[in-house]
């Protein structure tokens, strides 16, 4: 478990130490320390169920009773703040404490079923363990135990066996204090006290899976894991989460080459002990529907091919296109894979046409990333969010787009950090951070940032203030320029938070036109020389700056590019025609682990490893490396870097293809300390600022949606939020919208139920980006910040 300082306490130097004596041993502890923590510092373990260092003390289970000199009755060590000179006697030195603990344990076991042999928790159960260590071996209770209907669903994913519960209130406190979703409560009273939800509202939280992990008994289980394995049969591997840029440490448990579950791992500096439900439950995609063999298109159809044949065909095709190849690296790449892509592009194909931004992007963003982010050391960390007086969010919805950032901001907001968000309304997530919305039309954030209220601007000038900008800012012209100006004029720290796990690492690895590894400018002579030397090339062998983003897309559609090498992109992230445009190219090679819109039009498909089959590194939004090991050593698939190494060999070029070799090469290059690409401020695109369209579309991807990597767990999918369109009552009135709305863009329309949101500004409609019944790019043909028209619709009404 994590030991953290009390919020707001000085981490480095405890203000004042006081002395307490535990079982006769004296120790100096900071003022305000709980007796149970003081004992832990001495290695004295007091039994506990309700105690959790990240939750407020509640003294609900009474298992930690200790004797305190001068106090007539045993006291709960988990809620007892120590005082100077306090003498605490635990079960090891006090009969009173030992007997009190045994008595409590006997009470807790009265109604607890003896189903350990079939219980998921058996083998890793604090109740089982502590009943053995501090309980009576025999029960004196001979009556019938309390029974409940078992199990009940507190959500589609989380199941509750109430008879196992010891009413420790960890899950309910987590829901309330950490997640901010108090939909799980202790109901009833006395012997009937039980955890439950309201009759018609499930435990609707993106973080619900954490309750299973902190449950000290087997009362909470997931539909996915329940009855699938015993803890002692599992092999555990520390891993890092591949789902977003929050950077969670995870533990992956597997049995017989199948992942059975994933847990949040303990990383106090990053995810503390939490993760989100996507990180916890969205792993079945790795073992379902995988591409197993290379595929080659022959007479218009893909057919299975051997590896040597497929590599040969792919290598020759790419060689023919050479410099006219586009290399598109998906946001899921590890640092090592992204490095391999850019090295293959520049050293083997001789092109700098490379972009990791497999989503809406802009030249302004390119300049921002190249100048401000690529290869920079950590500028803002999680702990900075906690101590920040003010955090301003721009084009960023942390609960959906980086959930651990959300948890940390919520924690910060509970101890005084003020959160502001530039957006179209106060979202549920912002409410939970006690945040304030600074209203802005999607696409017009730049104007709002330029004329922020004076109090917000002043708050950002306080030391420690942070501005966090999301990747959606790229779709809103001028936003990043305004953000840079704001950060410079106020002195606030600036953090860019991409949505995908691989983006920051790919940027640092140089998978962006004009930007070599470590943020080295491709046009800088020193940088070119050092890279060329590392790659065994002459400086003149390195390509001149190539195309990326919109320019690269235009080149593809205009026929100036003839081939593409595409690695693991999610077509749903792209504006519609970006993937379609690839169909017109002469030759497309797709490195993928599942069939996708890209493999459908590819000429060669090369299957690659998923994260459980390889090792590698993600870089989280902070810039912190999150290395992870291989779960399955007997994996049949090689990583992207391994396959690219084979392609390079087929073209008589060598390039490092293992994680060890790539890390070694990156290590030899070291960080870049030379000149950086300067930031070029963008002028606001006046065409985009045109508001003659009826309303503007606000949209982002919900945490749980139709993402490819969430496939395979119907219970998780069932906890996704319903697809609705949100708008202000004023907007609804203006367009006479009732219960349903028809939203139309140039590419089509969707019809959705309406949720009126009084916090939203007029003239905006919000929809999820890629949810059931609303895939914005595909269905509407436009994205975030664009004009759409809305009209009344009826439920299930026709077009």
């Amino acid at each position: 478990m994590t030991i953290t300082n009390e919020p707001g306490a000085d981490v480095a130097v405890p203000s004042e130490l006081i002395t307490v004596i535990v079982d006769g041993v004296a120790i100096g502890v900071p003022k305000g320390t709980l007796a149970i923590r003081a004992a832990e510092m001495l290695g004295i373990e007091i039994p506990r169920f309700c105690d959790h260092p990240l939750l407020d003390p509640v003294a609900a289970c009474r298992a930690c009773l200790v004797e305190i000199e001068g106090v007539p009755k045993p006291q709960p060590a988990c809620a007892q703040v120590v005082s100077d000179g306090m003498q605490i006697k635990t079960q090891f030195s006090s009969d009173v404490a030992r007997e009190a603990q045994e008595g409590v344990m006997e009470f807790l076991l009265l109604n607890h079923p003896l189903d350990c042999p079939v219980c998921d928790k058996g083998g890793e159960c604090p109740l089982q363990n502590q009943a053995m260590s501090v309980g009576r071996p025999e029960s004196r209770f001979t009556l019938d135990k309390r029974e409940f209907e078992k199990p009940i669903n507190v959500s589609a994913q989380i199941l509750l066996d109430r008879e196992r519960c010891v009413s420790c209130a960890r899950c309910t406190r987590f829901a309330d204090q950490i997640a901010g979703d108090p939909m799980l409560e202790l109901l009833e009273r006395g012997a009937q006290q039980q955890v439950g939800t309201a009759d018609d509202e499930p435990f609707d939280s993106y973080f619900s899976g954490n309750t299973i992990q902190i449950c000290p008994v087997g009362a909470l289980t997931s539909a996915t894991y329940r009855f699938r394995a015993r803890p002692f049969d599992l092999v555990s591997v520390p891993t890092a989460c591949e789902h977003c840029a929050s950077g969670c440490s995870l533990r992956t448990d597997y049995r017989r080459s199948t992942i059975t579950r994933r847990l949040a791992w303990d990383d106090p500096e990053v995810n503390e002990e939490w993760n989100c439900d996507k990180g916890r439950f969205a792993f079945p995609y790795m073992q379902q529907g995988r591409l197993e063999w290379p595929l080659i298109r022959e007479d218009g159809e893909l057919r299975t091919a051997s590896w040597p044949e497929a590599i040969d065909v792919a290598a020759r095709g790419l060689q023919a296109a050479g410099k006219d190849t586009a290399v598109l690296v998906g946001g899921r790449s590890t640092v090592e894979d992204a490095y391999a892509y850019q090295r293959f592009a520049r050293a083997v194909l001789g092109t700098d046409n490379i972009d990791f931004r497999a989503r809406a992007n802009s030249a302004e963003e390119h300049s921002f990333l190249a100048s401000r982010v690529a290869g920079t050391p950590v500028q803002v960390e999680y702990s900075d969010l906690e101590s920040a007086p003010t955090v301003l969010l721009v084009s960023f919805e942390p609960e959906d787009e980086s959930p651990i950032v959300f948890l940390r901001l919520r924690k910060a907001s509970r101890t005084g950090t003020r959160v502001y968000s530039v957006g179209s309304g106060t979202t549920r997530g912002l409410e939970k951070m006690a945040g304030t919305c600074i209203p802005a039309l999607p696409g017009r954030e730049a104007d709002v940032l330029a004329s922020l209220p004076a109090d917000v601007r002043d708050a950002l000038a306080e030391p420690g203030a942070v501005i966090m900008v999301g990747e959606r800012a790229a779709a809103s012209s001028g936003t990043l320029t305004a953000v840079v100006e704001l950060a410079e004029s106020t002195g606030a720290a600036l953090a860019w938070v991409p949505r995908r796990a691989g983006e920051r690492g790919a940027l640092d690895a140089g998978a962006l036109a004009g930007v070599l590894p470590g943020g080295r400018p491709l046009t800088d002579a020193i940088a070119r020389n050092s890279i060329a030397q590392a790659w065994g090339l002459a400086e003149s062998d390195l390509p001149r700056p190539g195309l990326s983003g919109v320019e690269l897309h235009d080149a593809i559609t205009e026929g100036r590019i003839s081939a593409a090498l595409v690695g693991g992109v999610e077509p749903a992230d792209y504006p519609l025609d970006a993937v379609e445009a690839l169909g017109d190219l002469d030759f497309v090679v797709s490195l993928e682990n599942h069939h996708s819109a890209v493999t459908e039009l590819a000429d060669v498909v090369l299957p690659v490893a998923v994260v459980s089959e390889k090792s590698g590194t993600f870089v989280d939004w902070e810039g912190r490396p999150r290395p992870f090991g291989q779960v399955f050593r007997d994996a049949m698939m090689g990583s992207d870097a391994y396959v690219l190494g084979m392609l390079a060999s087929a073209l008589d070029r060598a390039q490092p293809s293992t994680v060890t070799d790539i890390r070694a090469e990156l290590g030899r290059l070291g960080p870049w300390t030379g000149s950086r690409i300067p930031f070029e401020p963008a002028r606001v695109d006046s065409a985009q600022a045109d508001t003659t369209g009826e309303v503007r579309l606000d949209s982002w991807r919900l945490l749980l949606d139709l993402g490819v990597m969430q496939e395979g767990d119907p219970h998780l999918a069932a906890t996704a939020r319903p697809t609705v369109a949100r708008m202000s009552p004023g907007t609804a009135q203006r367009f006479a919208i009732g219960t349903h709305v028809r939203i139309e863009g140039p590419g089509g329309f969707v019809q959705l139920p309406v949720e009126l949101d009084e916090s939203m500004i007029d003239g905006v409609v919000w929809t999820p980006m890629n949810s059931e019944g609303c895939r914005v790019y595909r269905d509407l043909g436009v994205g975030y910040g664009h004009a759409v028209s809305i009209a009344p619709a009826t439920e299930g009404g026709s077009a």
Partner: protein
Amino acid sequence: MPISDSTREQMREIAARYPSARSALLPMLHLAQSEEDEITTDGINACAEVLDITPAEVTAVATFYTMYKRERVGKHHIGVCTNTLCGLLGGDAVWDSLVEATGAGHNTASPDGEFFLERIECQAACTHAPVMTVDWEFMDDVTPGSAVEVIESLRRGESVQATRGPAIRDFQATERTLAFPDDGLADAPSVDDKMLAGLQIAKERGMTGGNA
């Protein structure tokens, strides 16, 4: 029967009385019960909406306190103390006679919906044991016969006077008083000479407690 708009308005009125609106939940639940005879999902959701808390948080409170009923109470709530003292002095017999007279059971209404019985815990009226409550007003020193008589009178629509309190109205009216306790009906003296007799004797004889 959904919670009416006027009840929601009154809920807001109650919430406005407290520095922290959430403190209003207990009287608000009584108000919901005065309209619906029980705590329904709709009543819970109305409270949650007014206070901007989750239905689960309201449910936790509504299921903890036994005065909030999960079954329709009907016209009158009849409580019989069956704790040790009242039970021994006739409470159990009173209970049996009421079950027979009404056809109701513990936390269950009679078939005609007129009476809802509940074995209640100590009401701090042991001097008047056995006690019965009708819509939470005291009926002191009851017997099986007098208890049934109260039931019969109520059934005939006659006025019944509480021993220490106002004339009996009905359950809904009492729940409303609990939500808005400033109607004067809650001010009747609840302590009488019999309850103070011991104190009187102690004073006369100059008796004091151990450490006083």
